Each structure stands twice: as C-alpha cells, then as structure tokens.
C-alpha cells in the first residue's frame, strides 16, 4: 500500500504536534506532501530538542525529523502578501490542504476553506485546532498535555492515593488526534474519488481525546464517579508492575482467569501464595489485592526482568518487561517483524524510525526519506507548480518571499 495515495498532493500547514503525524502517514503511503514554513517562521519543532550533538541551525532537531519524514519542504514567508498569493496558487493545485493553527490564521492568509474551495471546489480541507472551528472556546490555546487534562484523561490516570499523573507525554498529539484525523481524511479521499466532491474536515483535538474515555463519560453521566486506579484492572487480578533486580527494572504481569493463576504458581515458585486462603479464589484475590501485590513483589524482587517475563509468557501468563526507549529498539518481536527502518539524515546521521504499525499482505510501509532541510524543495516546487523561472526564484528569494 506504499503507493496507494500516489497522485494526492497535500499543502501542509501542520506544525508542531498532532497535525504533522497526519501528513507523515499520508506521505508514507504515496501522497506528495508539501510542508510550508520559513526561515522567518520555522515550525517550532525545528527549535526543539533533542538535537544532533554539535550541530547548529534549523535542521538539527530529532523531534522535527521524527514527524516530517518523506515530506517536501517549501520555504514561504507567509507574513508577506506575495507569499500568501503564491500559497493560494499552490492550494488551487492541491487535493488536500491541512493545518492545525488556531482558527483565523489560515483565513487571514486567504487560505480558509471557503477561500480555497472557490478556486478548488473539490479540495479536501483539514482543520484540526485544539477545540474546533466554532464555539466560545474556539480560540483557546493548548498542547497535548493540557488537552489530556481538559478531556478528563489526566484526572483518571495515576494512583488513587496520589495526584493525577496522566501519560507523561503529550499523548493526544500522538494517536487520538492524528489517528482520528487520518480516518476522516482517508474517508474524505474515498468520497471524493466516488463523487468528485470535496469537504471540510473539522477535528477538535479535545473532542478526539474525549472519545478515548467514552465509557468513563457514560459512567459519570449516570452519576458514577470513575476514578484513578493505578495499574489495576476490572478484567484481571492481579494486574500490576513489579520491580525486579537492577535499577528501575520492572515487569508487567496480569492474570485474567483461573488457568493463568495456576500457571503463575509454577512460574513464581509461589507455594506461599497458593496455599494462602486470602488468595484462594478470584473473589478473595480481588478483596485482598493489595496484599497479593505485595506478596508477588516480594517473590520477584530478585528476578531478572527479562527472564521473569519469558518464564511467565512460556506458561501462558500475560507478562512483558516494561520496555524503555532503548529496550524497544532491541525488542526481539519488533526486530523480527522488520519494524525499524534506517534513515539517513544529512545532519542527524543514521536514525532508526518506526514503520507504520501494520502490514498489508506482509508488506511494510513507513518512512523512506528522512525529513527535509528547511526549504530543500523550494526551487523545484516553484518551477514545477508555480512555473517560476530561475531568475524569478532568485528575485523572490532576495525579497525573502521564498525564504
């Protein structure tokens, strides 16, 4: 499926967080994504660490590189009217125009949906602001972490006895917002292929994230009070993360049924657990969950985390070491499945990037070309799409329009 979107051209104003991951996946499946930014106003991620050691400038950010592979970079200084005019001409020639700015920014440049659709009636237009394109809070600002808080996810994540902790990341930016936006964009592409009609897609990142806690919302609407529950689960008991030998080494394990409970017995050499009346039935274990967790913690505290997980997996108990970013790069399952792709970036050097998280008929899709240098494709795109001569391009560069 790596070429399934060939022929789809995207004018991409998705900066920073969620939006960049939408156009990344489109680019990995054959779409031509033209990312617009400028030296006057680069995507903020270019200024965000981690940086290549010893490097300087706007092409050294690993953060930027991880979200913008396979795109082409067009440097256009949108603060100038001439640049806005060129962008409008590009929009006329694109199948998809995307942005995750605050509502109003694209409109000021004459690039709102209604402007673009006048000259390009079948355009698909994705606007994915924090809280949607209308409503009293439409201009409110936020980040993934604040959206997770607003949506209820932060309150619900953490230990019941402590303050809420959330996911430790800007989680809504990584899957809830871009994932849902991709679903909508691909559906709109199909609709256009069948009817010739375009559409505007509005994604409120808040609404996309609230969808991730729908059962808690339904519960609260019935008068319930869904609450933080650490690593425990209604579907398994025990369900927890246990410290193993070494520094900050943990193994996650869970038991869903009696068969798995019996298997845990052998693997933990836990005669002490299984002879204990407090743990003799699912109901007893649930009633004494804290004590059960402490008993398991004691049994595994000197085990090697990988060896423990393997011995549990071998007898059918759900278990996995709690993998860090270095561990996932080495994880056998991911390696065997050909998940990592090596990219060569002129400033960052070789970097391993994750593939798309699915295969079709055994075939992998994912990153092929490293993220572009700022403005790397300006000249060729200006010639190809805007019909500008070298002399005109030089002049517009001197005027800091193509900048």
């Amino acid at each position: 499926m790596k070429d399934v979107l060939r022929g789809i051209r995207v004018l991409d104003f998705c900066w920073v967080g969620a939006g960049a991951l939408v156009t990344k996946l489109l680019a990995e499946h054959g779409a031509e994504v033209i990312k617009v930014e400028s030296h006057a106003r680069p995507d903020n991620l270019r200024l965000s660490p981690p940086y290549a050691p010893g490097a300087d400038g706007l092409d050294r950010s690993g953060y930027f590189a991880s979200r913008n592979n396979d795109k082409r970079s067009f440097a256009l200084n949108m603060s100038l009217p001439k640049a806005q005019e060129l962008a409008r001409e590009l929009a006329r020639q694109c199948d998809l125009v995307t942005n995750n700015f605050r509502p109003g920014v694209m409109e000021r440049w004459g690039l709102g949906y209604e402007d673009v659709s006048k000259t390009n009636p079948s355009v698909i237009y994705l606007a994915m602001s924090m809280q949607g394109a209308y409503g009293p809070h439409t201009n409110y600002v936020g980040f993934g972490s604040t959206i997770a808080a607003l949506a209820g996810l932060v309150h619900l994540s953490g230990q019941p006895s402590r303050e809420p902790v959330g996911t430790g990341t800007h989680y809504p930016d990584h899957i809830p917002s871009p994932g849902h936006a991709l679903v909508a964009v691909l559906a709109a592409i199909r609709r256009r292929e069948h009817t010739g009609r375009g559409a505007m897609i509005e994604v409120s990142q808040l609404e996309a994230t609230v969808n991730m806690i729908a059962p808690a919302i339904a519960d609260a609407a019935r008068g319930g009070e869904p609450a933080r529950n650490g690593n425990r689960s209604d579907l398994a008991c025990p369900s927890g993360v246990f410290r193993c030998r070494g520094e900050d080494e943990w193994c996650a394990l869970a038991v869903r049924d009696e068969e798995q409970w019996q298997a845990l017995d052998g693997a933990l050499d836990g005669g002490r657990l299984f002879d204990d009346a407090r743990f003799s039935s699912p109901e007893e274990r649930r009633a004494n969950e804290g004590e059960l967790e402490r008993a398991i913690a004691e049994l595994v505290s000197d085990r090697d985390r990988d060896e423990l997980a393997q011995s549990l997996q071998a007898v059918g108990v759900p278990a996995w070491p709690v993998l860090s970013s270095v561990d996932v790069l080495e994880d056998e399952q991911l390696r065997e499945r050909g998940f990592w792709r090596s990219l060569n970036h002129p400033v960052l050097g070789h970097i391993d990037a994750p593939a798309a998280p699915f295969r079709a008929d055994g075939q992998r899709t994912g990153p092929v070309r490293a993220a572009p240098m700022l403005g790397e494709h300006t000249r060729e795109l200006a010639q190809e799409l805007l019909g500008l001569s070298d002399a005109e391009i030089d002049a517009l560069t001197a005027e800091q329009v193509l900048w």
Partner: protein
Amino acid sequence: MPELAPLSFANGDGPLADISVLELVGEFGSYAGELLSGLGAQVRRLPHPVTANELEAVRQELGEADVLLRSGGADAPEPPQLDPAALRSLHPRLIQAILTPFGSDGPKAGCPSTDLVRLAAGGLLWLGGYPDGEPVAPYGGQSTLCTAIFAVIAVLLAVLQRDHAGVGATIDVSAQEVLIQALETSLPEYELTGKVRRRAGSAPREAGTGLYPCADGYVSMVAGRLGTARAWRRLREWLVEEGVPGAEELFEQRWETLEFRQRPEAIARFAEVFGAFTAIRGKLELYLEAQQRSIALAPVNTPAEVLVDPQLAAREFFRQLPDGTTGEPRTVPSAPYRFWTERDEVVAH
C-alpha cells in the same frame, strides 16, 4: 459554523455506504467497527469466538462482506476453518484486518496479554507514573482503542487500493507497534544523545510547565517552551497585576532563560509564588482567565466536569443513545471529527 452545512452520513450516502463489515472481535476491534459504521459502512457483529455451530453462518456472511475485522493472537483463538490465508484465497477481494497484541508472526506472536502488558511492550507504560514510584498506565484501555484507530486507517487504505486495483488485503495490526507511535521524543533522544528518557510524573519539569494544585483540584499549564515565550511573559504580568507576592521577582533577568527555569530551585520558587495565587482560585476561573491572556492552561477535569464543559456543550458534543446491550439511554461523545460542505452543494444534492 453557520456558513457551512454539516455532512451527515446517516442516510446511506457516507463514504463507506457500499462497504459491508463483519466484526469478529474480542477485546479489540469494537471501536474500529464503531468508526467504520459512523462513516456509513454496514457493520454486523458476530459472536466471538466462533463455535463449530456458527461456522457455516459465518462462512456464508463472508461471501457478502467487504471487510472482516477480527481480533487474533493468543487471547482470541479462532477455528482453523477461519484461517486468514484460506479465507483470503476463497475471497480475493476481502479486506481482512487482524488486530493482535504483538502481530500475527514473530517469536512472541502467541503471547497472551492485557492492556497493561501491551502498554509495557509498546514503551508507553515506561513513560507514565511518578518518578519516585512504579510506572503507571494511562486509564481506560488505551492500547485497544489506539489499535482500533490504526486498524481503521489501514482498512481505509486497503479500500482505496481495492477501488483502484480490485484486490483485497490481509492486514496485520500490532498493538505493540501502534503504541510505539506515541513515544514522543524518547526514541530520537536516545539515538542522538544516548539519554534514556524516564518517567517524569506530572510535577513541573520547568517553572511554568506542569501540573499545579488549585482550590478545587489541579490545573495543567505549558508556558515558556515550544513557542510560548510570550505566554511566559503574560503569565508573569498576570501575577503582578493580581498583586501576587513575589511576582515582581519573576521579571529578574535570570528567569528569562529556560536553563534557569529548569533548575530545581526555580521550579520550587515558581511553584511557591504561583501556588499562593492558585490556592484560592478554582480551576475553571483560572482556565478562563489564563485563556483570556492566551496562556495554555487547562483544568484537570473529572469526567463529570467534561460533561458540562461550555465549549463541548455549545457544540452539542454529547448525545444520548440507547445502550447496545441494555437499551437504556447512554451518554456518548459525538464522532471525533465533523465533515462540512458548502451550503449550495447540499441544496443541489
């Protein structure tokens, strides 16, 4: 948006109106069916796992189906008659999405799992939790929902491919791989600097960014980094305006640099000054006031508070639907996206 007309896919004109979906799902997949149904697909849910008696019925339905959503792996065994390769050769146009914890092959494909275990394998669990305690999972079975979203993305790509080339596809979606999409900067950070990012909790990592207690709970704020330098200034101006003790000090030169604001003493001093201000104010008041100043601050809402959020209410985001099993009314969010079109298109249509 009064100037545009909403596109509704309820009347058989959705982008997937011609697509029929069979759902053979366990823990995974029901959200995928919901999303496809919202785009107009006809979705039929079959009992799972399939028993010998039901096999014939399933096989008949498969003849009519465009998409089969199925959960696989050790947690969802299916009879050999439903072997994916066999189904595919019988139905070459079938798009079959198999949602599994760790993928359909590889040395660990057969391992059982729960949400917690998948989060551990996908690296997201490692990043969550308190620095002085154990890793803690995000709430609500996020691994199953995220896997369903990517399954739908893959199915839609496969539908487009089938439209063009006439052939189906067997899609293998791994929850572990899905979660790795959510590890933020931790992979490039390790690759470029050798530093392994650890869980940082929700406490501020720099003055101005993190969770702060207030009169009725907590607020979450980002002021100072990722292009929010102006918000950091406005935040201090706000505190001075309100006569908060110590606020003037925040205008000293050293507070201008991120390097200083990341020092423990800066984090602690800011928390003290800001904390005195927030301790006597509610999260909603702080939210509305901060946003008037374009400062990215949000309340840490409970689900009950999300239900009365003014923005979601104005957008009529929550709906009442009969529950799938009990038939009782149930409050549910609207779709996570909205489609709009020019008004004249709808009229012409």
